[in-house]
C-alpha cells in the first residue's frame, strides 16, 4: 500500500502536470471571473466563496481521468488486481494520492486566491477548513467516476457528467460554510455536514469503485 502511494506520488512529480496543472487552472479560473463579472470589490467579495469552491471542484475534476486510465493502458491495473492488495485498498490509496497532488495544494493556495477575489477577512480560516474537509470527498467521488469510466473511449467527458452531480452536496455545504464565515455567522452546521459527507464517502465509496473496476477489468 505504502509502495503504491509512493509510486503514484513519484509519478505525479516526474511526469509533470500533477501538482502544477490543477493549481494553475485554479489560478486562471479565479483570474477570469473578475473579467466576467466586473472589477467591483463588493460584487467579487459576495461571490468569492462560491467561485473559490467551484474553482476547486473544477480543478479537481481536471485530473480525475488519470487516476486509473494510465494504469489501465499500461496493464498495471490488471497486475494490481491480481496482487495481494485488496482492490478497495488500491482505490483508496489512489484517491489519497490524487488528493495529495491536487486537493492539498488547492487547500493551501486558496487563501491567496481569496485575496484576489476580495474575500472578506473572517472567511479565510473557514475557507481553508471547509476545503480541507471537503476536497477529500471530491477525490474519492472522482475516483468512483474514474473507475466507472476507465477503458471507455471518450471517457473524460462522460466522467464529468457522472461526477459533477455527485459533487452537489459537498459544494453546497462547503460554499455555505465560507459564505457564513464571510458574513460573520456561525459556519458550524454546514461544516459538520461537510465532514459527515466526507467521512461517509471515505468509508463507503471505495467499495463501489472497486466493484466498478472489477467489472471494467473483465
Amino acid at each position, binding site marked *: 500500500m505504502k509502495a503504491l502511494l509512493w509510486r503514484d506520488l513519484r509519478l505525479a512529480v516526474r511526469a509533470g502536470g500533477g501538482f502544477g496543472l490543477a493549481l494553475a487552472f485554479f489560478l486562471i479560473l479565479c483570474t477570469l471571473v473578475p473579467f466576467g463579472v466586473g472589477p467591483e470589490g463588493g460584487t467579487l467579495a459576495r461571490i468569492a466563496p462560491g467561485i473559490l469552491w467551484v474553482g476547486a471542484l473544477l480543478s479537481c475534476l481536471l485530473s480525475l481521468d488519470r487516476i486509473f486510465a494510465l494504469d489501465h493502458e499500461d496493464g498495471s491495473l490488471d497486475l494490481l488486481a491480481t496482487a495481494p492488495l485488496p482492490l478497495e485498498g488500491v482505490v483508496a490509496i489512489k484517491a489519497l494520492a490524487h488528493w495529495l497532488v491536487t486537493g492539498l495544494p488547492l487547500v493551501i493556495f486558496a487563501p491567496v486566491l481569496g485575496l484576489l477575489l476580495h474575500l472578506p477577512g473572517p472567511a479565510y480560516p473557514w475557507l481553508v477548513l471547509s476545503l480541507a474537509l471537503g476536497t477529500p470527498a471530491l477525490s474519492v467521488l472522482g475516483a*468512483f467516476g474514474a473507475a*466507472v*469510466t476507465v477503458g*471507455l*473511449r*471518450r*471517457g473524460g467527458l*462522460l466522467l464529468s*457528467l*457522472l461526477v*459533477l*452531480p*455527485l459533487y*452537489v*452536496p459537498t459544494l*453546497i*455545504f462547503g460554499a*455555505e460554510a465560507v459564505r457564513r464565515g464571510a458574513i460573520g455567522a456561525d459556519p458550524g452546521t*454546514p461544516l459538520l*455536514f461537510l465532514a459527515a*459527507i466526507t467521512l461517509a464517502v471515505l468509508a463507503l*465509496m471505495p467499495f*463501489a469503485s472497486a*466493484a*466498478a473496476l472489477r*467489472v*471494467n477489468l*473483465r
Partner: protein
Amino acid sequence: MSIWEYANPVKFMRASGAVLPWVAGGAVVCCVAGLAWGFLTPQDYRQGATVKIIFLHVPAALMAINGWLMMLVMSLIWLVRRHHVSALAAKAAAPVGAVMTLIALITGAIWGQPMWGTWWEWDPRLTSFLILFLFYLGYIALWAAVEDADSAADLTGVLCLVGSVFALLSRYAVNFWNQGLHQGASLSVAPGERMSAVYKYPLYLSMLGFFLLFLALVLLRTRTEIRRRRLAALLARENRA
C-alpha cells in the same frame, strides 16, 4: 409460479405482449379523460387558469421520481439475481423517466412565469428536479458508452445505487441551501385537505393515466431492448459459426 419466472426473456415477451395493449389503451383513456376533465375545472380564485397545469405537472413529477425508483429496484435485482430482463427494464425506464422530469421542469417554468414572475427560480424542489435530470442524463450516457452489455448493466447498476443516495442527499442539501417559494405537497394523506375535490379527482385520474403511460412506454421499450439484444446475440453467433 413465482414472479421470477418473468425474468426469462421468452416468458416476459409473451406476458408483456399480452398485457401491453390493455395498458396502452388504459393510458390513453385515463390521460385523455383526466386532462379533459382537468381542463373543464373552474378557475382557481387566486391562480386563475394557470392552476390547470397541475394536471400535467404533478403526474409527471410523480413519475419522474417513481421512474428513478423503478430503475433502482431493477438495478438491485440485476446486481443480486442477475436477471437480464431487469437490467434491460432499468435501461428502458431511464429515457422515459428523464422525459417525465423534463415535462415537470418545463410545466413548472410555464406555471412559475405568471405566478412567481420568473421562468426559473432556484427553489429547492425545482433544483432537486434539475439535479435528478442530470442523474438521468449521466445514467443514459453511461449505458450508451459501454460496449459490452453485461458490463454496461453492472456499471449502470452501481451508478444507480450511488446516484440514488446522492440524489436524496442533494435533495436535503438543497433544502438547507435555499428555503424556497414552492408550495408544499399538493396532495396529502394527512387530515386537513389542501386541495378542493374539484381539482383532486381529475388529478387522481391523470396520475393514473401517467402511471399507465409510463408503464406502457417502459414495457414497449423493454420489449424493444430484448429484441435488440436477441438480434445482437444471433448476429454474434452467426459470426462465430
